[in-house]
């Protein structure tokens, strides 16, 4: 393409540094926000004002910020749960079901300790909380392992299996917490019994300790893929399963392993939302909403290109915008799901901008003189 005396050209990138990827992503975010402001303008709201409200509520407001961070922890765990199989070339669409199983696992521990009967029970939290975490991870891992086993042993499509398991887990939760279920709230109400306050997750400045788990998992994953033998095997399987098999890497063990690990991390997300976020402390009636939220883990994982560290800012942004978007919707009386729409636009733009991960635009000045055909201009 020619603009004035400049020749624009699309060139294939050979390499992409982390810094370049970050710049492209930031540009994509700016572009998405600019694009979305047209919606605010249509609703006769000054977009700058709207964005200031969104960001200040999400990241600088004493009420908004904790919500953002809780959502961030949840999204980051779901993203990690997606990334582990993703690096092995496999798609985990089942974080939803895995986190339900995690929640059930955590509440099963409470149930065993009698937490359902006496809410005032003084449980030894030093024992019970770790047990709840282990049970949550186990619950998710078992569900994940089913998909991994079927993939590795019989080559059953993992997308279909994880998706189906989501439904099974959803109804299993319903069975457990609704009328007559073992985890039923004594008052009915279609939700589970509440956590005894003695085993509320410890808070640090109002933030549940699960933030360290979420961040720790991403750092561990980064290390796993960059340095370890098993990480190498997972990556090899992800890029070329036939070559991995040739190199002696088991095409049964890798799918089983990544789905077990991914499921375990998703299970922890279940613990986080239903047993660690202040004000929830039960498997809520609208647990399906949190299950749907887990799907953003896929988006965050794809946008960060499977890099666990890059997932941190992405999950923070998505968490913040979903909270801030919901807030301005109420405050500015906008009649639509600002949070969903905003995340949707952002998602599409970020994915579209990944084009620039592979190509770059270069321009060169083309003097008018070249057309004269004098060879001296060929420099």
């Amino acid at each position, binding site marked *: 393409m020619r603009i004035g005396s400049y020749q624009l050209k699309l060139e*294939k990138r050979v390499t992409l540094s982390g810094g370049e990827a970050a710049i492209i992503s930031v540009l994509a975010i700016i572009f998405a926000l600019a694009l979305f402001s047209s919606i605010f303008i249509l609703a006769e709201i000054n977009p700058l004002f709207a964005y200031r409200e969104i960001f200040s509520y999400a990241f600088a407001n004493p009420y908004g910020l904790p919500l953002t961070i809780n959502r961030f922890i949840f999204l980051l765990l779901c993203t990690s749960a997606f990334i582990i199989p993703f690096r092995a070339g496999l798609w985990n669409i089942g974080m939803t079901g895995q986190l339900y199983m995690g929640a059930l696992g955590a509440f099963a521990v409470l149930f065993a300790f009698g937490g359902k009967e006496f809410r005032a029970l003084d449980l030894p939290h030093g024992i019970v909380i770790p047990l709840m975490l282990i049970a949550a991870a186990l619950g998710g891992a078992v569900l994940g392992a089913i998909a991994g086993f079927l993939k590795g042993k019989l080559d059953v499509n993992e997308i279909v299996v994880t998706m189906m398991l989501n439904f099974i887990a959803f109804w299993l939760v319903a069975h457990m917490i609704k009328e007559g279920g073992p985890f039923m709230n004594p008052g009915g109400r279609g939700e589970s019994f509440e956590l005894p306050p003695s085993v509320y997750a410890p808070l640090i400045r109002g933030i549940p300790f699960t933030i360290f788990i979420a961040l720790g998992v991403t750092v561990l994953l980064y290390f796993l893929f960059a340095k370890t*033998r098993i990480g*190498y095997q997972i990556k*090899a399987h992800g*890029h070329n399963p036939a*070559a991995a098999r*040739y190199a*002696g*890497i088991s095409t049964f063990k890798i799918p089983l392993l990544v789905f077990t690990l991914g499921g375990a991390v998703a299970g922890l997300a279940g613990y986080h939302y239903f047993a660690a976020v202040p004000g929830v402390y039960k498997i809520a009636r609208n647990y399906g909403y949190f299950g749907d939220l887990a799907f953003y883990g896929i988006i965050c994982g794809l946008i960060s290109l499977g890099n666990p560290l890059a997932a941190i800012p992405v999950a923070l942004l998505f968490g913040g915008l979903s909270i801030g978007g919901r807030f301005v919707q109420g405050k500015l009386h906008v009649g639509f799901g600002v949070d969903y729409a905003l995340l949707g636009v952002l998602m599409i733009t970020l994915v579209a901008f990944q084009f620039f991960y592979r190509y770059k635009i270069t321009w060169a000045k083309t003097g008018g003189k070249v057309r004269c055909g004098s060879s001296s201009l060929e420099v």
Partner: protein
Amino acid sequence: MQKGLLEGIKRGETVLEARGITKRFPGVVANDHIDFEIRAGEIHAVLGENGAGKTTLMNILFGLLQPDEGEIYIGGKRVRFRSPLDAIALGIGMVHQHRKLVSAHTVIENIILGHPRVGRILNLKRAEEELKELCERYGFKIDLRAKVWQLSEGEKQAVEILKALYRGAKVLILDEPTSALTPPETKKLLASIEAMARDELAIVPFITHKLPIVLAISDRVTVLRRGKVVACLETRQATEKSLAKEMVGREVIFRIERTRVEKGKPVLQVENLSALSDKGFLALNRVSFSIREGEIFGIAGISGNGQHELAEVLAGLRKAEGGRVLFDGKDITHSSILERWQMGIGYIPSERIEVGTIGDFSLVENIAMNFYFDAKFSRRGLLDYGKIRKLTKEIASEYGVVAPSPDTKAKNLSGGNLQRLILARVLSRKPRFLIANLPTRGLDVGATEFVRNKLMEAKKEKAAILLISEDLDEVLSLSDWVAPIYEGRFMGIIPGEGARREEVGAMMAGLRVKGEEA
């Protein structure tokens, strides 16, 4: 675009000329000021190793790529191709190495597909008559109403040529025209090419390694090396040796001396081994043989006769249906792939891109494929990437892998370089038993020579080697024992020294020779 630039052109006149063609790709100049010219009625071969820039030049001449610099002239007029459609309209035809035909359609349907004269209603009858004439004129024997999937490789190629001619091509670009053909098919094709040249057509075959073909048919040869034209000469003045020297840039030895090595104890014993193909029929049928230290056991045969399955069973990639495999006297029939690597078995697969390497991995990570499980390179579950990197640098230079850095992705390497990389990785494990499946297929002269020398070196170091090759000369000149394979069975096992080509060729085609069964 002006059509008809080539109408009424006479023998010996320049039909197509390229001046100063330059094309750069990230990190490499694929074509560096290439001048190339072809005249009517001439067969002008373009010769070059893998990665010399042949494909790029070919794609530029056919309009698939646009040059960064340089001009193309047709019939003396400057032209610009925006796409192959422009090139076709101006009378340039191209026959790709990978066929581009609709296999469920008949020959005629394929040929008229996309022809400008074809309207909404097909006039197959007229097309058939015209095509019959073309076939007769150039000696193509094809059933025009046959479906393409029923045709052999040679016939499919003839269809592609006919298609280009029917579109009115005056310049015919042929990409590796004989690479997939059997010897009789090659002969027929060459006769047709000569007949076309007599009719004032300009033929440009692009060839990687079949030098005798170049000498047999072409009038002139242009040799490319590293993106530049290094020679353009009359074929009469060229010899196989001189062309190879121009291509590679140094003298090339064509025949490798079979080194004599003291035979040791048997390394591999195979007893009544059977295996199924991917489609589930018996591809390997009760073969038995043994290989001793310092021995090359060559399997000669046309692809699809069970040799691929044999290689995979021995490498552990395919289940044995029956029989036993002993390695150093130990039964390994059911050992895993990893166990086999660890006990000293190495496999060079025929599928370099699909199986042998991981395109998105760097060279270092590709080398790690055969070392990640070694205690030397990993401690407590951590891979020592620094050490693997050092190893990569060492063996990459020893095996002549040309790459900008050890972090280059394997997918950016040419075919020959990829094979060097695989060879480097497998051989540096010093395997006691090596399976080499089509190790030189598709490689240029220089790389082929290199691979053969490396196999000989491994042999000297007492490796037992199973060599699978479609190149009969290669098997005969390298192997201590030759086993022609036909429909999953060995037609005999004969000593490589003194084995006659005709005899082995007949056995490959299914004839048993008396005195077999070694």
